[in-house]
């Protein structure tokens, strides 16, 4: 007669497994339905008045980092300091003096999304934010 297979201390094992599963999945349950809403960058009055950034909004949203990177190379390496946009408008290629001139609210404009996306650009280690603050 074959020996009957059984789990020793079945009650304890199952209870332990359930407790483990609950603790393991706690972060998921705890945060269920509490997804942080996608932040909407706040525009300053000056930015609103300008209607459009140097390029269309969708492009800026997705590609501002690329543009800044190109600007940097162009200004620092090639001494080309003026950007002619696709709409034939000219802009000084400067993070502090052009971008942050309109978007002088770094905390509400830049940081909000960067924090949400968990990116830490180190632009502001050197480039000064809010260029108009003390003027």
């Amino acid at each position: 007669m074959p020996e009957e297979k059984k789990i020793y201390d079945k009650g304890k094992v199952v209870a332990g497994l359930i407790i483990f599963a609950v603790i393991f999945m706690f972060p998921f349950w705890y945060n269920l339905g509490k997804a942080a809403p996608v932040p909407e960058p706040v525009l300053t009055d000056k930015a609103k008045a300008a209607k459009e950034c140097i390029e269309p909004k969708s492009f800026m949203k997705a590609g501002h980092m690329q543009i800044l990177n190109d600007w940097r190379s162009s200004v620092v390496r090639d001494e080309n300091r003026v950007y002619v946009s696709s709409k034939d408008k000219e802009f000084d290629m400067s993070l502090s003096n052009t971008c942050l001139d309109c978007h002088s609210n770094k905390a509400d404009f830049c940081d909000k999304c960067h924090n949400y996306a968990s990116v830490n650009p180190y632009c502001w280690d050197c480039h000064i934010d809010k260029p108009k603050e003390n003027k």
Partner: protein
Amino acid sequence: MENSRRTFLKIAGISALGLSAKPVFNAFAVSEEHGEKKEAKVITKKGALTAKRWAMVIDTTKFKSAKDLEPIIKACHKIHNIPVFENKRHEIKWIWEEEFVHAFPDLENEHINDRIKHLPFLVLCNHCQDAPCVRACPTKATFKQEDGIVAMDFHRCIGCRFCMAACPYGSRSFNFRDPRPFIKETNKKFPTRMRGVVEKCNFCSELLAEGKQPACVEASGGALVFGDLDDPDSKVRKLLKSNYTIRRKTALGTGPAIYYIV
């Protein structure tokens, strides 16, 4: 049987061709979509001062004491957000004063006239023709611009300090500490630096781009003259023609672009 295999291969071949052609169609579709959009481009600033090789002549006969140099040094350090550190070893300097024997060690005579002996000399980056710092930099953070300026890309500097070891003029300073809290008056138009990068005089290329003379030249009241060394009619060349000038440590072959009238 044979016939059906033949048709199968035909169909398979045509399908493969069709699939491989899809990316081409995609490419066309994309270019059509953006066909009307104008490409953005970058250009140089209008009214910028340009030259083949920038150089400076410093007329030391116009200086009497360290007091005359002070406003010049201040003007530079103010617009470039240079921090002031109490500790000399942390000092950042773009333009500073030096006595003759230290500025021109190879011209040191046992006896020199009193004026030169006690005169403070204004020294800065020499923007060498064959700059040793450019050669030493492993990341090309320091590079030679087409107009002769030895420029720095602070984004690229990894703080290895090879350039500081290479520079025979001590023109480079290293940021041992975060400079921001030590900047007295911040010029909001110019960036600061961060801890761990080397910095030096940039011949005010940001002012040249606006059509202005370097800050030290502006503040010197004519003692410092800035111009194109390659242009025989430039102010610099005229001064060099009519005055005897010396340069620092020319025997090293770096080809400094700062000339001193003594």
